[in-house]
């Protein structure tokens, strides 16, 4: 059992004890699923850098702390204040409040009940796993499956076109180090259209927060889903997320992921399975990585049927001792003829100490496809910088303009001006003082 040493971290041992104590609480269909998932996690342990998918991202430094599994309480007044502060300014939107993984319908403003069904996932575990039986051998997903509590199940009714986006406000509270494992399911039924904007607030007293979240989304025939994810975290946050999307025939899915400087660890897995022909998929990402932070985006687009289009643009800006990983896999099966798959990843290093690992990965088994990928790593163009400065624009503002320009391919595609404004203001607030010359 020598290999056990690799992952028998304090947290691993704690989790084993916790499951044995309370994990078997649930009953019914879910019990076996949880047990199996737990056994898988127990056998595999936390991922290590020996695994190809985790080669550049070591979880080890983040597993040595003790974590609690229970959230802190929050009084109603504070909660209302937090909600008010979390809304995207000037955006006309519905909103769903989720406190420590538990939905708060009475504090939310939601579309009419015939348009959207909202339930706690806790009571609908069988629903939750319907169509997601095959979770593969991902240890972090298995861990979530074994332990998740609460979570939401959100279903958009057939033919419903939501008139406004839905902002999902995730609020976490912690008084001590805490591990959260939220689980969510979104179903957009035939011919329906919806937009989700996910934001997160963490209220804590200098405690560590580890979030291991799993989301499963189904976009049914001719349906459209746009998902915006704003990851605006604090230093003490460690985020591992797994987002799986199933797209059915003629559906469209757009994902925007904004990783702002803050969390010491962000690891996103975004996987899209194209389970029908004539689908359209857009994955757009921005990652801004601050000092001693690690942001890792793993994406996978799985083309299984003919005539599907996928388009991916991920752009990274790295500061100081920041480290980023981009791994973009596009898998085109033999049956998936007439596939158009484009991928682009650009990185702007604002410091000599920043590091980026970029790995475009195209696996193509069909012979009549258009697929391409491009990847760049660079610094500011000195000529552009001089041009702006020669017009009276300060060095700092010039750098800011050039960073804005670099991100433009992604930001221009945000449809709501208020949301665009919000994301950009967060970026600039977080990057304040980062535009000065770094030697």
């Amino acid at each position: 059992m020598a290999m056990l040493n690799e992952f028998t971290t304090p947290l691993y041992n704690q989790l084993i004890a916790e499951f044995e104590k309370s994990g078997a609480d649930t009953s019914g269909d879910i019990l076996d699923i949880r047990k199996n998932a737990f056994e898988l996690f127990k056998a595999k342990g936390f991922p290590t850098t020996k695994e190809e998918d985790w080669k550049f991202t070591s979880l080890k430094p983040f597993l040595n702390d003790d974590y609690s599994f229970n959230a802190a309480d929050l009084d109603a007044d504070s909660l209302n204040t937090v909600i008010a502060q979390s809304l995207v300014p000037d955006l006309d939107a519905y909103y769903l409040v989720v406190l420590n993984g538990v939905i708060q319908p009475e504090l939310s403003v939601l579309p009419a009940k015939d348009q959207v069904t909202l339930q706690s996932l806790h009571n609908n575990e069988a629903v939750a796993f319907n169509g997601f039986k095959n979770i593969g051998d991902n240890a972090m997903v298995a861990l979530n499956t074994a332990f998740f509590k609460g979570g939401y199940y959100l279903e958009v009714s057939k033919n419903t076109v939501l008139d406004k986006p839905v902002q999902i406000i995730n609020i976490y509270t912690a008084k001590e180090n805490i591990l959260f494992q939220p689980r969510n399911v979104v179903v957009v039924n035939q011919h329906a259209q919806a937009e989700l904007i996910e934001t997160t607030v963490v209220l804590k007293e200098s405690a560590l927060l580890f979030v291991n979240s799993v989301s499963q989304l189904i976009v049914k025939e001719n349906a459209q889903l746009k998902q915006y994810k704003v990851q605006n975290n604090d230093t003490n946050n460690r985020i591992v997320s797994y987002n799986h999307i199933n797209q059915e025939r003629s559906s469209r899915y757009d994902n925007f992921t904004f990783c702002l400087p803050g969390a010491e660890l962000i690891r996103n897995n975004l996987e899209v399975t194209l389970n029908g022909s004539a689908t359209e998929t857009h994955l757009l990402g921005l990652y801004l990585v601050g000092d001693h932070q690690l942001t890792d985006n793993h994406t996978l687009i799985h083309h299984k049927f003919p005539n599907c289009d996928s388009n991916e643009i991920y752009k990274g800006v790295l500061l100081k001792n920041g480290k980023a990983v981009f791994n973009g896999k596009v898998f085109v099966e033999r049956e998936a003829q007439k596939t158009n798959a484009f991928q682009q990843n650009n990185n702007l290093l604002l410091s000599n100490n920043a590091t980026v690992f970029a790995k475009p990965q195209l696996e193509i088994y069909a012979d009549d496809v258009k697929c391409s990928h491009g990847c760049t790593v660079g610094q500011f163009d000195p000529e552009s910088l001089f041009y702006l400065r020669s017009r009276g624009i300060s060095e700092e503002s010039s750098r800011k303009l050039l960073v804005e320009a670099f991100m433009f391919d992604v930001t221009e595609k945000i449809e709501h001006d208020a949301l665009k404004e919000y994301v950009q203001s967060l970026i600039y607030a977080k990057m304040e003082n980062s535009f000065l010359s770094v030697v």
Partner: protein
Amino acid sequence: MLSIKNLHANIEGKEILKGINLEVNAGEVHAIMGPNGSGKSSLASVLAGRENYEVTEGEVWLDGKNVLDMKPEERAREGVFLAFQYPVEIPGVSNINFLRTALSEIRTHRNLPALSAKEFLKLTKEKQQLVEFEAKLANRSLNQGFSGGEKKRNEVFQLAMLDPKLSILDETDSGLDIDALRIVSNGINKLRSADNAFVLITHYQRLLEYIVPDFVHVLYNGQIVRSGTKELALELEEKGYDWLKELHDNESINK
């Protein structure tokens, strides 16, 4: 207005400017001519503050202020404008946003009130008309999709917007056809006043038929080897640069 004294500058350890002396007064237009590699564009770059040049000796003063102590943006705010020989395309930076930022920083420095959006647009329109620059600027990235001629005209338009004291035009005429040259020249002539000055860097006498200079200087091997009036440009056109090169190499002319 501009006073250059014994200016020496290196790039990558190689001496390019070897003692330039030049006085430019308000209201004047100076042309600087010279063969390729004589240091014309280097002089423009050093005056604007391009960072890969190292000034090893000499002084540059603009209305009593030490230009060499200033960052490029400070020079611009004090009224130095360089029209680039090769204007840069910057995808993602909008023309309008760029101009607004530049103008607002310059106006702040000059203690002028900020322009409202309406005033800014009005000014943009006026100056576009003045320099006959019809290109659509809204929703377009800086210089992106502009032809070579449009880029040069955009430089003159920016000059009109920012209203500098001293404009240095680095081969603004190169790559322009005769119509574009006339338009650019007309624009510059309209911008000339008793309060500003122009330094035209050019390889050809052609430009000087449209913008008549008060003085012509010939730069060769990092030094001004001859200065005169517009007739000097005609003489050069006739005799070519070899004539001056020979004179200089034989006699080592010093001003």
